[in-house]
């Protein structure tokens, strides 16, 4: 039996981020971001960097404090809880990608032996990119978007990003994003990067900067960290949705009593809590598996469970709130829509279950890299 209890420092870090975000008032930031005015979102981004969030994914030798996956999921739980907009998981995944291509600590040594970057003729380019961008990611002066088709086909919020990367197969490119597509979540804009599904081919593919098995391995690791960060965000989103719904069920009266006093409402809310409580240790467990051969498998289990739990929280929130839940002006809608969008971002529950099954049945099927 493993207990995933955060230590005093990790708890203080999470509480600090919660207070910072509560003090910022994220609903205003989210609406401005959705309306194409990213200034407040970018200011918040720098505050989060000052608090040390992005440095958690950047190796110490490149100006960061990482890699620290447990602290990272602690932070992303709070980012989800406050529905912070922007390519958050994308930026930490890009940091992982660049850190591995640079071949520094956190690269080959802790992994199984498939990072043979000796045969990558363009290693220097990946290295140069890493040296230029990793310190900026850590200090919050670089917002990075990333596409890893097929699982992550579009670059999120590429219009607000300082760097857009795309890995297609085993080639890494700096992408020139095409025209944005809308998302279920108005605060998410999805940009084709000239790779992946046919409809995404409206953008010009950039020059390939690095290629080879090292890029493929780095992209696989980056996908793992991005999906893990997204899973932590989903648990945080679900928690906030449940809190808001419990509060509403206690305040809204019908038939002479609070609607939360009705057993059918209680059961729905209890089911959401159980789902979230099952997902949370999977997320923490996957963070602990970082660097081990089980990491990809554990991340898939965590992302599938977190996606379903947060989505259940969103559906229950909508049901219990009634018509007010549909209202655009009511902040709940910001959380409901993000939960639905993140459910399928970084791999849908079905995709992650397929990965999980493939890893349990000997690696055949869809268990490979993105």
């Amino acid at each position, binding site marked *: 039996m493993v207990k995933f209890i955060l230590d005093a420092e990790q708890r203080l*870090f999470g509480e*600090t981020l919660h207070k910072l975000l509560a003090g910022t008032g994220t609903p205003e930031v989210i609406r401005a971001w959705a309306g194409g005015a990213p200034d407040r979102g970018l200011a918040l981004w720098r505050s989060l960097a000052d608090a040390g*969030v992005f440095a958690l994914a950047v190796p110490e030798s490149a100006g960061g404090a990482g890699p620290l996956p447990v602290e990272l999921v602690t932070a992303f739980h709070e980012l989800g809880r406050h529905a912070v907009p922007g390519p958050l998981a994308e930026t930490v995944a890009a940091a992982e990608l660049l850190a591995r291509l640079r071949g520094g600590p956190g690269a080959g040594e802790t992994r199984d032996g498939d990072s043979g970057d000796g045969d990558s003729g363009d290693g220097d380019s990946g290295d140069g990119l890493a040296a230029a961008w990793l310190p900026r990611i850590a200090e919050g002066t670089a917002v990075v978007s990333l596409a890893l088709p097929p699982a992550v086909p579009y670059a999120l919020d590429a219009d607000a990003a300082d760097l857009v990367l795309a890995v297609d197969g085993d080639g890494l490119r700096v992408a020139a994003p095409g025209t944005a597509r809308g998302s279920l979540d108005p605060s998410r804009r999805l940009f084709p990067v000239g790779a992946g599904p046919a409809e995404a081919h409206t953008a010009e593919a950039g020059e390939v900067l690095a290629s080879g098995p090292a890029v493929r391995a780095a992209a696989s690791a980056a996908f793992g960290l991005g999906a893990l960060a997204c899973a932590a965000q989903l648990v945080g989103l679900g928690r906030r949705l449940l809190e808001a719904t419990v509060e509403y069920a206690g305040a809204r009266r019908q038939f002479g009593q609070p609607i939360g006093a009705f057993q059918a409402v209680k059961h729905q809310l209890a089911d959401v809590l159980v789902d979230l409580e099952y997902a949370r240790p999977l997320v923490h467990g996957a963070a602990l598996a970082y660097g081990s051969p089980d990491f990809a498998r554990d991340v898939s289990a965590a992302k599938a469970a977190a996606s379903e739990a947060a989505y259940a929280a969103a559906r229950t929130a909508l049901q219990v709130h009634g018509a007010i839940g549909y209202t655009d002006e009511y902040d709940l809608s910001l959380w409901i829509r993000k939960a639905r969008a993140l459910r399928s971002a970084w791999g849908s529950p079905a995709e992650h279950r397929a990965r999980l099954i493939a890893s349990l049945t000997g690696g055949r099927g869809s268990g490979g890299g993105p």
Partner: protein
Amino acid sequence: MNIVVCVKQVPDTATERKLRSDDKTLDRDAADGVVNELDEYAVEEALRLKEAHGGEVTVLTMGPDKASETIRKALAMGADKAVHLVDDALHGSDALGTSYALAQTLKKIGFDLVVLGSESTDARTGVLAAMLAERLGVPQLTFANKVEVNGTSIAIQRVTDYGYDKVEAVLPAVVSVVEKINEPRYPSFKGIMAAKKKPVEKLGVADAEIDVAQVGLAGSWSEVADFAAAPPRAAGTVVKDEGDGGVKAADFLASKKFV
């Protein structure tokens, strides 16, 4: 400059606060402990003064073992070291007893400037800074919304009902701050991790040469005789507007001597 900032752990104001039925002191187990909000402004001001003038910031707290959480938070914000005055003999001390215990400790550890929040959210006496200055025999500069140090002189703006007073003194001195003075920083991850390695000195009453007859419940000059839960708020007066709502509202306000 040797700056000491006094911080207090108080029950979270967002939760229900209780007194213990046995000795009528605060029930610290009934609510989560948090840093007294005004003390965060005091820590921030101490850090800013250090950043501008050099020196070091020491956190001083008096409280049970659990108060170490509050020390950790202040160290994570950037203070250099901490002194934790912790002893069962101090339990139940009133403001006079607390000011005596803290003054004894401050005499022992030394200071150029003591910074405090102007009051705590639990006891709300707001007198500790003045008592401390008196006991230490140094100037008191209270309710500051601005602090300037120039060499050995210190000047503050003291917030009043009608604006502010300018108050000047020579160091060493005691300053208490109000929430308008600054915006406290959030501890960063680096700050939180660095705080783990910062020294925290634990002192008992004997270490600080505190006379136990002057502290604790028995040594306190004030006493809680009795307490009761706040009565539930009475229902308000509903004025039904039948064309004369304005007059009725005005009559009501007049009856309460508002108009």
